């Protein structure tokens, strides 16, 4: 099987719910976002469109980050296609960040808490698993998925713009949506084979 995600740009309103639900789920430190929302505009006044593009690790079939990693810290699970980072093996060289054409990897070098006064009880509880000076990124909420729950960004989206499922299963909702609504990936010309698809506006 191969886990994948479909993000419906017709539904998405760019509310940052995914970005912040992810932050709450993983307790990521300042400057680290497993999920982000990019904003862009297209066209000229008055025929202009404001576009929101939620992004996250694409969990590529052929991930350039894995190829670039000198220690084997970045790896792809053959079992379900999730691309992960073994923090214990990461030496923080950031080769993977250079290799990722989607810039969805982050180097954790900032303070580990948001308020200058120190870590909040939440941060103390949620950031204990993080290591500093390593690269971090989305892991498709592996723990939630294993527990039978969808990733936090999928579960939370107020517009129900995100769907999670098995891309290898032609009957899954993600496969159906990609087929029926002309799902596309980002930068297909690079041949990375992203597992995150988008449905057009």
């Amino acid at each position, binding site marked *: 099987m191969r886990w994948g995600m479909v993000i*419906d740009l*017709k*539904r998405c*309103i*760019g*509310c*940052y*719910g995914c*970005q*912040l*639900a992810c*932050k*709450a*789920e993983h307790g990521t430190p*300042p400057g680290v976002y497993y999920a*982000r929302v990019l*904003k862009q*505009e297209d*066209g*000229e*006044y*008055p025929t*202009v*469109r*404001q*576009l*929101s593009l939620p992004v996250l690790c694409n969990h590529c079939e052929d991930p350039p980050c894995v190829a670039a990693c000198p220690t084997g810290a970045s790896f792809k699970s053959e079992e379900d296609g999730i691309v992960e980072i073994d923090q214990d093996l990461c030496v923080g060289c950031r080769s993977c960040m250079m290799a990722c054409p989607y810039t969805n990897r982050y180097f954790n070098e900032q303070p580990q808490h*948001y*308020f*200058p*006064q*120190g870590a*909040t*009880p*939440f*941060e*103390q*509880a*949620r950031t204990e698993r993080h290591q500093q000076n390593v690269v971090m990124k989305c892991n498709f909420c592996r723990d939630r998925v294993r527990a039978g729950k969808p990733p936090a960004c999928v*579960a*939370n*989206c*107020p*517009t*129900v*713009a995100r769907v999670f499922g098995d891309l290898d299963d032609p009957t899954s909702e993600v496969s159906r949506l990609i087929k029926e609504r002309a799902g596309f990936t980002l930068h297909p010309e690079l041949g990375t084979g992203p597992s995150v698809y988008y449905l057009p506006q």
Partner: protein
Amino acid sequence: MNVFSPRQFQTPARDDVWVPSSCSICYGTCSILAHRVDGVVVKIEGNPDSAVGKGRLCGKGVSGIMTHYDPNRLRYPMRRTNPKKGLYQDPGWKRISWEEALDEIAEVLRKVRADDPRKLVVQRTTTVTASRVPFHAFASAFGTPNFSVSGGGQHCGNGAHLISGIMHASWSVVPDFDYCNYAIFFGASKGHSAGHASCSNMGKAADARVRGMKMVVVDPLCNFAAAKATEWVPLRVGTDAALALGMCNVIVNDLGSYDGPYLQAKTNAPYLIGEDKLYVRHAESGKPLVWDLRLNGPRPYDAVAAADMALEGDFMVGEKPCRPAFQCLREHLRKFTPEWAERVSSIPAATVRRLGTEFATEARVGSTIVVDGVTLPYRPVAAIAFRGAQGHRNSVYNFYAVDLLNQLVGAADVVGGCLGFNPTSHGHPDTGRVSYVPSAGPDGLMVVGSWMGYHYPYPPPQPRLPKNLGLQDLFVIGMTSPFLDSVDSEELWTKFEVPYRPEVMINFGANLVMSIANKDAVAESLSRYKFIVSFDLCLTETSNFADILLPDCGYLQSLDSRSNFPFIFSLPGGLGEWCWPIRQPVLPADGEQRQFAEVLLELADRVGFRADLNAAYNAWLDLQPPYRLMGDERYSYENICDRELKNNFGPERGLEWFKSNGVVKWKKKPQEVYWRPFVDVRVPVYWEFLKPIGDKIAAIAAPRGLNVPLEYYDPLPDFLPCRSHCCDKPGFDFYGFYYRDVVHTNSFTMENPWLDEAAQLDPFSYAIAMNRAEARKRGFSDGQMVWVESETGRKVKGRLKLTEGIHPEGLGFAAMCGHWTDGQPIAKGKGVFYNDLLELDWEHASPVNINLDLCVKVRVVAAESAS
């Protein structure tokens, strides 16, 4: 009833529980599950068991953890040691005990209550809707009518709520997302970031888009709603009425495609109007007359079959020439040609014509549809407005004109049309509570079945020489008032012989120095108070003026029995479920924090008016035996909440039941959601009542030297310009306006570091949006620091964001940013303080609903980047 029980996740070995409760990061109050592990909240998710948000939250909702754990939260009561009050005076806070704090407050309150209770002003933020009943009850029991919600009303819906109330019996309106095919939004973002039923509407609007609903968004800025629109129609700031009236003219006079039977049966369109612009009334009964086409004569409106009522024609009743209100409206609309609308709004005449035609065509006048086995009128079009359209001097007419679109085609509270938020409820099947239905009031016009406070929108009370500091008893169409803090408040109070002055303020969480208008005006007003006590989470720019600060519990530490009631406010409209969630503490108070509701009860005891407060709670919560509060017995807030829940849902569903189950819900009936055909009420498409009210106000005001422009009180809507539209000072060529940002609530959330971080990444949140071509003409570049200066010399500084998505004459500011207090170090210095450009006086208020004019003509000059 509830399949899901949070208890099933509980493990005995350690503290690991999901607690059902309610969000409070904005007034939408979506239902949450807070995950607590070993005494720490580690996640907040939406509660999938609730209809309010349906298990999903916006970015603000999931970020509430960081507001809760902010180390800058207040933990102890404090007293100021510096007697001087000012914007930049350090109060010299000194920690005191609750005993000292409550003693001192109670003594002040006792004295002022004995002297004149009206000298107390009770003010609260709109963000915590749970504060409404405790503070309203406290104020009314204390004996003061001087109640305010800071910038609330002025900055959201003085016009929207008034007109939604008069026309839809609800606090706001929304398209029927389940069935609407064509929605036109005027300065509104319902379903795209707005607070009312926030997350629920986001989901419903997304479903509607996928279903194929067309959405036209009329707005100077192409952002949240406009970004998802089928068509963005940019317009000159504050001219929404011009487009709406132009469209009405196209529908009525060019196309003739209005819904005659609806207008006859459900509006005052057939009521006969005399040359004096008033109803022609039946001599004996005083009822408005209509022209009975069958008998060819005048008869009272309730004595004629709707289908026999004339909508057009010229008639004589005795010696009096008269014509149906619809005929007056029709004639009135003729002057609003698409070409006129273009001159006012800058929207091309062809677009005005096309939008009017599309709206009329898509309305499918005369059609019906079957919903849940019930045959109902089907009008799948809706015209929606909110803050953007009505935050102006022409507040009332802007909104009234937009809603006329719905009324003309009969798309009001029917399938697919413009819906009020739940104006009719038949109650829970077990208890029949809470039940309310709009009813016919004076002249057969609709009176709401449920309301939020103040007076009902219709019938308005009679104007009188005012006794309220906000003058709402003179300007009776108004709801919240700018005159508590305006620079001319003393002058107005003197003119109108208001026999007392404000001396004491209880403030709950409002940051009015930033949330009303320019800070100097509000600071001067606050400095006049002899004593201010403020409940706050953190220090604010306003708490600088307080004498005593009380550390409030946050929403994760508080209890409230009615998160989403009244249903007309934040429960999603349209089909679905009725749902009653509660808020309950997930965590204990930190330090000496105490929940405001308990503190108010204790203050009432200390001052000695618990019996009055009990009576007020009985009224506000509609408590019936055996749950009524008796005498001066000292009930805890928890006990009061328990009584309210049992009162509404039966003895088995008290607080303990709700603490475990989170919500009670039941299915809505089509007869509730689409109530209009089932309830015999009419709404005014001709606001006859406005004229006599205007005349009465003028009769009181004119002899006292205040000129009330009566063109604002004409029964039919018009475009009347804002001050900004009249500014012709050279160089002042932008209309400044602000809008609600999707990651921020009022001035509250900039201190939340997750939301602050998201706002910093967003290109617009902390910037000033300017049209790219206009910027180029003036030599401005993206990211440049500029000063924005009003005609009167008020200035704010900010960073430009150049965009194609803004009207060339508009200058857009997000949210209420620009904090300077050290008490909120994350918020400090972020974004732009737009409100500081706004004047706060009679001249900048609507003469009808006293809404503040929120647009301002400005010039933009380059700022030295270092300054």
